[in-house]
């Protein structure tokens, strides 16, 4: 039987490793772009050139120009920064808060757990996008609000899966053995190390979702101000010029797609590896 398990696990883990490497490479590449785009971009992304509007992709402008004659490629590179600021911040906030809530609820159990979970259930059912629209539109458009809204809508998701993992671990005999010995800091010393894989998988998955959410909010006009090179905002701004200059829309759209797909690949590979082990 062990031979069966062995041979089945092998190719799967190799595939996971390749997917993880691909995914991480894409994410890393965009992170480098976000940090260093002023050195990488051939033009100033804000530089208007009325003489060269709607240039199709070519040798001078690799991805053409938009209705103000701005270079699409440079704007695409510059657009990586806002997304890669908002999404990691929101993810970190959500994962830390969600892990704390999930660990506390899961290891405490009883009434505390019941109440926390009912509240989270109630919150999680409320569509995140609607909450985001409500808060960003009404509380004012700022990076802080966007980060808080995205983080807030992810906290229950993280908390619920960390709690589920904690409940599984809490019932295991090694935790009971520690209780019999009267160990202190049971949750941190005994349970947390075994819940960390769940936290890691959650973090990668939520990171992808945070990019998704940040881009969508920008597209809806609730994130970065219009006219900024942000990807979501660019798609929104340029969709009026879909007919004459599709590249102005496609470039930021495909940039978003490549980043989220990279993260999704990495997250899936992490989950697969963890489940295989």
């Amino acid at each position: 039987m062990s031979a069966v398990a062995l041979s089945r696990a092998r190719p799967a883990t190799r595939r996971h490793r390749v997917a993880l490497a691909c995914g991480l490479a894409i994410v890393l590449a965009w992170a480098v772009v976000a940090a260093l785009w002023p050195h990488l971009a051939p033009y100033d992304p804000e530089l208007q050139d009325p003489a060269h509007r709607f240039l199709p992709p070519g040798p001078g402008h690799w991805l053409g120009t938009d209705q103000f004659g701005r270079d699409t490629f440079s704007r695409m590179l510059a657009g990586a920064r806002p997304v890669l600021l908002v999404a990691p911040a929101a993810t970190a906030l959500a994962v830390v808060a969600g892990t704390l809530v999930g660990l506390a609820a899961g290891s405490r159990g009883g009434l505390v757990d019941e109440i926390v979970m009912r509240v989270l259930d109630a919150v999680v059912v409320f569509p995140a996008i609607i909450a985001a629209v409500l808060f960003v539109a009404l509380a004012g458009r700022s990076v802080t609000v966007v980060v808080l809204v995205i983080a807030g809508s992810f906290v229950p998701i993280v908390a619920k899966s960390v709690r589920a993992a904690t409940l599984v671990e809490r019932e295991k005999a090694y935790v009971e053995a520690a209780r019999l010995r009267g160990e202190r800091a049971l949750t941190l010393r005994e349970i947390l190390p075994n819940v960390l894989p769940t936290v890691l998988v959650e973090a990668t998955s939520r990171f992808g979702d945070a990019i998704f959410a940040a881009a969508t909010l920008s597209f809806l006009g609730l994130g970065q101000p219009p006219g900024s090179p942000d990807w979501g905002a660019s798609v929104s701004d340029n969709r009026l010029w879909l007919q004459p200059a599709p590249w102005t829309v496609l470039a930021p759209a495909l940039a978003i797609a490549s980043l989220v797909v990279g993260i999704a690949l990495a997250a899936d590979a992490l989950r697969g590896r963890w489940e295989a082990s």
Partner: protein
Amino acid sequence: MSTAGNTSGNIAGDTRESVSGIAGLAVEDLSVTYRTGRGEAAAVTGVSFRVAPGETYGIVGESGCGKTTLGRALGRHLPPEGAVTGGSVRLDGADVLELSPAALRAWRATSLAVVHQEAGGSLDPTMRVGAQLAEILRARGHGRAEARREVLRLLGRVLLPDPASIARRYPHQLSGGQQQRVVIAAALIGRPRLLVLDEPTTGLDATVEHEILELIGLVRAEIGAAVVLISHDLGLVARLCDRVGVLYAGRLVEEGRARDVLAAPAHPYTAALLAAVPRFGESRRDRELTAVPGRPPAPGDAPPGCAFAPRCALADDLCRRTPPPLEARGAGHVARCHHSARLPEPRLAGSPPALAPAGEPGPPLLEIGGLTRRYGRTAVVDDVDLTIGRGEVLGLVGESGSGKTTLARAVAGLGPRGSGTILLDGRPLPAAVGRRDGRARRRIQMIFQSPDASLNPSHTVRVILARALRSLRGRAAPEDLAASAGLDPHLLDTRPARLSGGQKQRVAIARAFAGEPDLVVCDEPVSALDVSVQAGVLRLLSERQRATGTSYLFISHDLAVVGYLADRVAVMYRGRIVEEGPAERVLRGPHHPYTSSLVAASLARFGEAPARPGQDPAGAPAAPVRATGCRYADRCPSRVDGLCDAEPPPLRTAGDRHRVRCHLDPRDLPRAPANAAPHPPRDEEEFSAPDP
């Protein structure tokens, strides 16, 4: 019980004889390999055996020896990575491995029947069981109405009460035993020529297992098929099989009539497996169990020469160099060993340790009074009184759901709270472990059932032991603690995932003993282990107990295991202690009718006593606990109507320190058969009147 005593034992060696035209199963020189990350690995190598129609052939061995692969190859149903690389499987002369896909399906439909372990999994959870059986019948051309009639008849044949109601249920609405009956009913459709039973009773309670085995015995006589039973359980094989093949590292190392192989094994592996199993009525004072050291090689890792040599006490250079041939060792008895002649008598393999006979128990260490624990509204432990003496091993037996684990956990301070008192050295102990003081916590430790869950997977063995030593104020070093549990020092820096089940349980034992406890609660510590490993863990538990004088509350569903280790035994049924007393008295009887059914099941496994007619007709799903009278009344063969179902039974004394909760007079209570009973105790007891 079997129709096959008359078949001549087919010796596996004679491969030159023409095999076509022979009735029954003929496996010739069968080899199976798996593709792994490291290349091809041989899982089964050159296996040959024959099974005549009506004969039952047992295949035994530890897990990882290729039993299951061999079983799957018989139905030509290997997993995608596996492939037959040589040999043939013929049934009634036709080679199964040569059949076209369509012919293979037809052959499976008409000639093959397979019963796997854990029947629940073999049934589609989203279909009513009647419909599942009808589907098979319809696939064979039966009409709708005819199929429905036939389903009811089949369910009746496997002795399920009220077939019409069973047919309408979904698998999850049946008990494990009932599910297995349904699967056996499915195997009866048509007239299979080959019946493969792959660990058919693993995971079932002893009494249920007993009934299922009876049913299998009944059925195989009826259909007259060649039967192959795959099991790790020597007792089961001894009971059910005419002939036995012992599989080690994918090779048949011994074959012969079941009673010859088990009474006088000709291969050291078989002998070692036998010496590892505690027999009913055998105590640790009679014989030390001997474990088989090491583990079987993984497929593809078998050493040159004899594959068993690294674990064998008799091995020499010849064994390590030259693979032994299969040689005759008696009538129809063959073995693959260079040194068969030097094998010691299996029963004498372990000499009794210097151990004082069980005498008067010491002063009470732990006194449980009126203990009740509930899950929801059900009292899982109901008003239990129990005492554990200083230095005493108290064994607690009962079927699953009897409340024995809940009781053990309550002693440790885990699980739901409830009423009742627990006194440690006469001082009351808080119910929850969190409210016990450090001293009380250090004095009571626990060893858990699942070796995989009882160690923190993210700590190394050293960290696990060091943490226990710190919190339990132990004075030893982790190295010494590990050594006292028979663990190699190099294992200290590995994590649990790299340990075998037996090693994990040794770490758990070392951890429990870190702070010199007075009482260790052992909750089925060996039930998840292979027999060869189980012996080592039992022996370690026995040694630690003898060395430290610690008391045990030892829980098991296996009467032979409890009887081996315990000084005193308590029997639990549906939350109540129905009997308790010195181990040999409880096992020998007179005992409670429920204990008697456990004893019968345990004895029948080794074929040491005739199986009694099942008094528990296909155990309907657990009925609610009756409000009045004796809880066992519904299943009891000696029930007195109007008394047992109305009045709660009194606690009667059946001899010195031996009490039974039953309406019957101790003189009328059942006893174990004389030939199987443990040695009589030193003093002959007088029966006395019920306790006031």
